[in-house]
């Protein structure tokens, strides 16, 4: 018995230079497609999908993912996460990721689109051993409403906690409630419509990497704002305010390539969506 709408668990390990699943389990409205190896690096890529096509009133999703020593993993989604109106109770997604030392996991989901009157809460909890590396991005769109109005959702709340060797090392809490906040205004979205966040944790982080990322991002010739800063633990976070998903994706793809090459000696393939 469970009150989850969809459950997914995925345990990964390295076998002879190739990352494979030790355990794959899913039930309800969460599914993972067959593993894909984009090249001969041994890094595995899993596409997560929601067969229901979107999150509905009161939906609850739970994902548990682990990577053993040496496992190299890409997790992404097949398409944007859509949250429809939630008149009774919010849609909720909880993800727990556990990384052993020497593993690398990147979780790069498609953007979140919250429809009119939608309430959504997401909680990501990452447990890392020292020596593991983790990369995460998310993109918040202004949502969707039949009238074309922006920010017509009720609440979008994203909580991310990263523990390093058992100690909380990073805590991020975004909660946007357009009815109570002047979302497009000063201090919030500063006139932009899309918010992108990236967080990366690895003992391989250094200032040279941040400078390189910053310079690469500055070469982008479009209207956006960006902040990049080191965390209290070895790692950094990036925030981007922009007016389109495509721009944030392009910036993140460029950053992803640099980070992946530096940290894993591996040039990532583009994450083709089927």
């Amino acid at each position, binding site marked *: 018995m469970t009150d989850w709408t969809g459950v997914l668990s995925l345990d990964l390990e390295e076998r002879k230079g190739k990352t494979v699943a030790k355990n794959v389990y899913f039930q309800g409205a969460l599914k993972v497609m067959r593993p894909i190896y984009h090249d001969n690096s041994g890094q595995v890529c899993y596409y997560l999908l929601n067969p229901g096509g979107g999150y509905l009133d009161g939906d609850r999703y739970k994902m548990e993912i682990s990577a053993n020593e040496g496992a190299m993993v890409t997790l992404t989604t097949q398409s944007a996460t859509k949250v429809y109106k939630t008149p009774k109770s919010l849609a909720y997604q909880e993800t727990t990721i556990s990384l052993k030392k020497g593993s690398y996991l990147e979780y790069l989901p498609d953007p979140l689109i919250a429809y009119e009157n939608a309430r959504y809460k997401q909680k990501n909890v990452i447990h890392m051993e020292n020596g593991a590396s983790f990369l995460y991005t998310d993109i918040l769109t202004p949502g969707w409403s039949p009238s074309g109005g922006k920010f017509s959702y009720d609440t979008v709340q994203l909580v991310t906690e990263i523990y390093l060797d058992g*100690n*909380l*090392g*990073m*805590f*991020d*809490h*975004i*909660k946007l409630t357009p009815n109570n*906040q002047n979302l497009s*205004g*000063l*201090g*919030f*979205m*500063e006139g932009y419509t899309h*918010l992108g966040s990236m967080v990366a944790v690895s003992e391989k982080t250094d200032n040279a990497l941040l400078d390189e990322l*910053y310079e690469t991002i500055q070469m982008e010739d479009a209207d956006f*704002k*960006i*902040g*990049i*800063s*080191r*965390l*209290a*633990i070895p790692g950094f*976070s990036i*925030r981007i*305010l922009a007016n389109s998903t495509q721009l944030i994706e392009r910036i993140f793809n460029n950053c992803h390539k640099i980070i992946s090459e530096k940290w894993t000696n591996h040039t990532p393939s583009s994450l083709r969506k089927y």
Partner: protein
Amino acid sequence: MTSKILSLFQLCDSNFPTGAFSHSFGLESYIQEDKVHDQESFFEWLKVYLHEQLIYSDGLACRLAYEALIEEDLQKVWKLDRLLTVQNLPRETREGTQMIGKRMLQLTNTLYEMPVLSLYKEEIKNKNSFGHPAIVFSMVAHGLEVSKSEAIQYYLYSAISSQVQNAVRAIPLGQTAGQTISHKFIPEITSAVDHIMQLTEEDFGIVSPGIELSQMNHERVNIRIFMS
């Protein structure tokens, strides 16, 4: 007014050398971009800074730390110290706050015989804690038996007042304009305290994306008068 409240006022005074006045917490980025350029635009910025960032971090932490001190739950206090530090993603504001916290602790530990202050120092020395002014302030307020809501109120007043002084120097604004802002801002502080009393722990650490981004951005500002 009791002498206890006067004692707490000493911590809010701009002469209290914690280094708080060297930090603009992202305000300087807004001034350089000309988004904050006069009394009105600064007032708007200050409202967002207080109601959308400060209450969910320092403000709520003040309250929770005070409550934990009543319960004698020091583990909870150390947990709040860590949360406050690691939720502060922009490096300059995080490290700046930590410096202010440590200096405030150093000073208050000299002024008061409060065992909890020495314990906090020990935690920091052992690298289990980081040091944060909201925690130190709550410890002193609790030790002086100043009420919880008054403690939060004075803490916020002190944070806001130092930002007003920063704005007077950096925008720049006249001294009278600065005092007018401080005066007009008092109802905002009162309503922020009411709001904090109604929050839950689940609300901790909510950030305002633009303010946070400007705090990160300050690292890349070349000409600066503030450390954050």
